[in-house]
């Protein structure tokens, strides 16, 4: 306490007022692009550094902005516990879609990801889990062959090893570039969820921004417990498609996490900073009960 005070005094002594003015001037004039985050829900501008310090949550409206898979794993699982599955799996071009391979190659270089989902096993506050994290930086985390296969394998692994699954969903829907093959991934993943569920195992979905289309209409909506981050977009059809059908502008909270809670499709909305704690509690609550018998 006392030392803290001293350090404040010391910095005051050390600071040179001219330096300070320079710093302020810099702040006002040179703001390179990419340093400001504009909130898609409330349009407020925040410095990236401030946003990062707040777990990428908009300080004004509480919108939970998108995390990379690596950032999500970092704040969710126990340090050093993550073992990735199928890290090198890459999709082919099942319907020979023009430029699909080139587009993917460019994205792989840009994001360091091989496709839009990262799966593996890990520990969360000591509990063994299988974790699935979708990353919207890769083709808006659309679901094609690789996403479907990795998710199905993760559930099959969890079924075989009797582990709970936690899936952080985010997706623009099915991957158009893989045509019907991507539609079939909805059946593949939902089938694998069904077998995991039939084995009496826990599956928790955490819906993050944006969970839409074919992912909402398959494994994302099938969790035993469905959690959503505040204000995120959750829905089946695209907003513009619906606005086109009804020829009216939809209210801002349409297809939000809150809208889904109100309509009965989400169990709870949990803030990012409380998520790890909540998941740990739920995992503990679902551990096999020994009937109260003495150990």
């Amino acid at each position, binding site marked *: 306490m006392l030392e803290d005070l001293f350090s404040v005094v010391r910095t005051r002594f050390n600071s040179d007022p001219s330096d300070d003015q320079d710093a302020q001037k810099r702040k006002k004039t040179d703001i390179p692009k990419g340093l400001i985050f504009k909130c898609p829900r409330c349009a407020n501008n925040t410095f990236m550094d401030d946003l990062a310090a707040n777990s990428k949550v908009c300080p004004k409206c509480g919108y939970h902005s998108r995390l990379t898979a690596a950032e999500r794993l970092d704040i969710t699982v126990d340090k050093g516990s993550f073992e990735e599955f199928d890290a090198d799996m*890459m999709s082919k071009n099942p319907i020979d879609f023009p430029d699909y391979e080139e587009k993917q190659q460019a994205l792989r270089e840009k994001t360091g990801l091989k496709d839009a989902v990262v799966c593996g096993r890990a520990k969360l506050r000591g509990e063994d889990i299988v974790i699935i994290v979708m990353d919207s930086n890769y083709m808006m985390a659309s679901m094609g*062959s690789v996403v*479907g296969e990795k998710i199905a394998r993760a559930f099959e692994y969890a079924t075989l090893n009797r582990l709970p699954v936690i899936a952080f969903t985010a997706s623009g829907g099915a991957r158009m570039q*893989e045509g019907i093959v991507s539609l079939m991934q909805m059946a*593949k993943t939902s089938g694998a969820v*069904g077998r995991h569920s039939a084995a009496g195992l826990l599956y928790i979905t955490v819906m993050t921004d944006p969970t839409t289309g074919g992912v909402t209409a*398959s494994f994302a909506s099938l969790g035993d417990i469905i959690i959503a981050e505040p204000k995120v977009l959750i829905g089946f059809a695209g907003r513009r498609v*619906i606005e086109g059908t*009804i020829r009216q502008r939809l209210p801002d909270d349409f297809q939000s996490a809150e809208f889904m809670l109100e309509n009965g*499709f989400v169990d709870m909305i949990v803030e990012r900073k409380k998520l790890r704690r909540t998941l740990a509690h739920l995992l503990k609550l679902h551990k096999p009960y020994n009937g109260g018998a003495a150990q």
Partner: protein
Amino acid sequence: MTASQKMEIVRTKGRPTVRDYIPMIFEDFFEMHGDRLYGDDGAIMGGVAYFEGIPVTVIGQVKGRTLEENQQCNFGMPHPEGYRKALRLAKQAEKFRRPVICLVDTSGAFCGVEAEKRGQGEAIARSIMEFMELKTPVISIILGEGGSGGALAMCVCDELAMLENATYSVISPRGFASILWKNPARESEAADIMHITAEDLKALNVCDYIIEESEGGAHTDPEQTAENISEYISSALKRNLQKGLDEMLNARYNKFRAIGEFDEGVEKTGVPSDS
């Protein structure tokens, strides 16, 4: 014939719909209504009937021909209660050990405010998962349009057949053109690159059988087409009724499990061994 030409045939006025086919293919059809949760969706009809003396459950997606009919069936675009009705009837079929015949014909699940409020995504997801585990044979036939998740919800089956001019796609060609090229008018062009015809889908192992239509399309001779459909259902039931339950469910799971094209990278990592 190109996909866009087939789409023209499917859209021909007078192409037979589920309402035309049911009396031509089945006997003693008793229609059932409602999902027991919210309401009765006119875009999906279902009930019990005989097929060659075997009791079956028939579930079909309904399209209309007149404006009035189309208002009743919402132009063949189901709401969540439609999928929940289909699932209710499928579970009823499971209870009484009747095979399920799904007749699919939709441009897609309805996109609207009420559909979102009542959980269109959840309704389709649950339908997919439950049909995958349904302990009775499921045969699906796409009659015209097989539009996206709205069709898939009734295409999780032991065998998928398509009429020769039918299409099945991840999104309507119109939607595809509008998303990828921001121009819905390039619909035909989109159809031709999307691999949506019965032949395309057979090559991709999505469709198992192609059912011939009468010369020029099903509208030229609905009865002949209905006869071809009956012949197919007859053989499909023979193939599937003799399977054991585990064999049937594993084959159904693996049918979908096997679809997808990927490389495992240079080193095959796979999942860590059991621990």
